């Protein structure tokens, strides 16, 4: 029975792997697709319009950037470059629209690049606020979401009703609950579910309607309960730096060879809302309020209630981790700015940490493996 379950789980993970790394949006894809650049996007509004939200996480280390290099400064992160490449080489030709958010200065330029090069696709910034602490914040987010709703309604040629958005919120609430459950297993029983597996299961959702993704997650959770687990003695660490540009899978595997990653910020936009969005009342208000009051943290959002050092400490405590791996994508200014502050905080708390830099396109991990192994050994024998 357990062997059958494991085989079924492997089949499911293989499917998720294929989905997660699928970049193509063919021009006959149905439902039609709205692409968005990280970190967070209120997918429910897109879903309620009858469109499929498509999170853009760059081209990874499987594509060759040839066209985009001539369009983007040499000192800009890889995800901007590879996403532009996917546009220029036709991989994303089927997208109906593209949205970026003001997560960083490079990301804001993506809306301009897209508009100049792909004039048939709607290309915009969704201006999520950087001030989360004003009594006026929720109303502003609400107004911006209503603007998005109106823009999408124009695209699909019909109004997007409150009832439709509420129904989407219901689907996404279930999705969030399932993801929380998945992360709960990773935290409480990390030998049962690796971070790479959790990652693939979550990322697959960016290529599916959420109803389908919910089916996959439910099945995975069921199969995981039947998995035979072989306990291993590895240090428990948290991983930071995967909120936007994604580290290669091989890098996560390299870390997991030596450590259990018991919490992380990989694909944090998919888990940005931390609790159920209210399903009563005005659904757009419920989404706006949830963005402000029930949300995660990352280097790209300022919120006076969430000082970065404090949030890291909370993450470590709640995950019962003994150390942290603090990473930043090459040229990622927000992560690089925070990296030092987080390291200072960890020093002050006497918590061991390892600092790594990555690029989505990296293909060699030997040196990183050596660093991680040395770090893990120092934790085991300290």
């Amino acid at each position, binding site marked *: 029975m357990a062997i059958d379950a494991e085989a079924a789980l492997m089949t499911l993970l293989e499917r998720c792997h294929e989905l997660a790394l699928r970049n193509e949006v063919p021009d006959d894809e149905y439902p039609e697709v709205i692409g968005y650049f990280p970190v967070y996007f209120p997918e429910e509004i897109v879903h309620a319009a009858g469109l499929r939200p498509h999170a853009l996480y760059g081209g990874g280390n499987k594509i060759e950037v040839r066209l985009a290099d*001539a*369009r*983007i*400064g*040499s*000192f*800009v992160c890889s995800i*901007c470059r590879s996403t*532009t490449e996917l546009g220029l080489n036709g991989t994303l030709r089927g997208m109906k629209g593209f949205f970026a958010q*003001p*997560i*960083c*200065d*490079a990301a*804001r*330029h*993506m*809306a*301009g*690049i897209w*508009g*100049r*090069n792909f004039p048939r696709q709607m*290309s*915009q*910034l*969704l*201006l999520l*606020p*950087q*001030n989360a*602490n*004003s*009594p*006026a914040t929720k*109303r*502003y987010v609400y*107004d*911006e979401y209503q*603007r998005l709703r109106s823009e999408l309604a124009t695209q699909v040629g019909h109004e997007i009703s409150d009832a439709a958005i509420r129904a989407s919120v219901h689907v996404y609430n279930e999705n969030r609950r399932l993801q929380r459950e998945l992360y709960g297993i990773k935290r409480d029983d990390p030998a049962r579910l690796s971070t790479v597996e959790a990652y693939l299961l979550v990322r697959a959702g960016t290529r599916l309607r959420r109803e389908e993704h919910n089916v996959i997650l439910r099945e995975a959770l069921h199969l995981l309960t039947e998995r035979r687990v072989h306990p291993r003695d590895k240090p428990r660490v948290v991983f930071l730096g995967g909120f936007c540009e994604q580290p290669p899978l091989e890098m996560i595997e390299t870390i997991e060879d030596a450590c259990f990653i018991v919490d992380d910020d990989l694909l944090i936009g998919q888990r940005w809302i931390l609790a159920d969005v209210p399903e009563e009342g005005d659904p757009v208000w419920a989404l706006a309020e949830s963005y402000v009051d029930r949300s995660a943290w990352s*280097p*790209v959002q*300022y919120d*006076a209630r969430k*000082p*970065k*050092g404090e949030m890291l400490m909370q993450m470590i405590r709640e995950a019962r981790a003994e150390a942290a791996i603090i990473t*930043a994508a*090459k*040229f990622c*200014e*927000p992560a*690089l*700015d*925070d*990296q*030092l*502050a987080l*390291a200072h905080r960890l020093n002050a708390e006497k918590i061991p940490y390892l600092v790594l830099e990555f690029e989505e396109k990296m293909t060699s991990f030997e040196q990183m493996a050596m660093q991680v192994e040395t770090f893990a050994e120092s934790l085991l024998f300290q």
Partner: protein
Amino acid sequence: MTAPYPVLEGVDARTAGQRLINQWLASLNTAHERGQPVAYVFVMGNAVEILRAFDFALVFPEINSLQTGVRKASAEFLAKAEDFGFSPDVCSYVKADVGLMLSNMQHPSGVTMPMPDLAIASSMCNVYIKWAEIWERHFGIPAFVLDLPGKRFAHWQAPAGSRQREADTRWVLGQLQDLIARCEQITGRKFDRDRLAEVETYVNEMVRLWIDILAFNRNRPAPYNSMLDGLTYMGVLNAWRGTREGVEYMRLLHREMADKVARGVGRVPNERFRLIFSGTPCYVNMRRLIELFESHGGVFPAADYLTYAAGGLDSAGIFYDPSRPLESLAEVTTLAAQFGLSNHFFSHHTLAQQAKDYLADGIVYHGIKSCRTVATSMADNREYVSTRYGLPTLYIESDLIDPRYWSDAQIKNRIDAFFEVLEQRALLANAS
């Protein structure tokens, strides 16, 4: 007519401007001794009008950082920040400021920079916010983040009376009210609407004059170089915004430029090519960069920098209504964000229009290694503008203040080659 200020007497506008900048810097030394609260602000989206109404002394850390470049001291400050642990890929302005913090606030101008009582970071540059977080940790003060909703796309419009204009203005107004409450808490003073109205009246006058001053450069020859003299003028506009001194200075500058235009005096003796500059200067080699263009008879009559780094007010085309000062501040700040400050993400049409308005022969893009705010998509912008509008363009790359990224021979070669193209085009145009 008000008597001119001693610092403005008997000198040209550029010298007077430098004196005013030095006077402002020197005043920061003793701000706290005078009982003045100190605010750290940025040049893009700073709500200076409210701070002036509360009599804050203003520190512009961007100006502090660029001054380390101008004074050839930036390498030392950058090295301190990198030794402290900052990555070479972090904004060099941020690192110079960290270097200043690590130098007991001893600025190369001789000024001991005061600690802030308040720090405002607008969302016009995301690095502002990360920078303010560094201050939060270093100085132990909470930052005030002013989120300004800019353009959403290239042809963005939010006409007066539209729901969109109302929504964005309401958001800005709400935050300005929060800021006022914060200022009242810090200073122990009540907000004075009349004082805000007075400051706005000064700003209006400065901006009216500034718009004229920018327009003087539509004349051939251009009376000043936007990326050299213009930087001093803009420095005064920022540091003395909303003051009587600022108005007096702009009047002096206006008179001088009007006179030059009337007499046909240009910044470059034999002006041959007029170019639009896009991007920020290289302060550590500012004169050298300009010299490389002026030696070919090239002048920059206009630069997008003089709009976005000057608060964006000139492009909004509206002025404060001091009879309703706070509401008007919210309206104008919103418009300035949308049509001045956030424009660099979608600047292709604006640059082409600027080239037309200023009778320019081409556009020079200056990519900045550590400034992704202005430089990320310059190459793409350039491709679009060259193809769509047929304008000759040049792309060069260095940094704001990091001398390691200045490659003199390479930059000179590119500039020389660009002028060869311009010369050939001129010859062809004359022949046809």
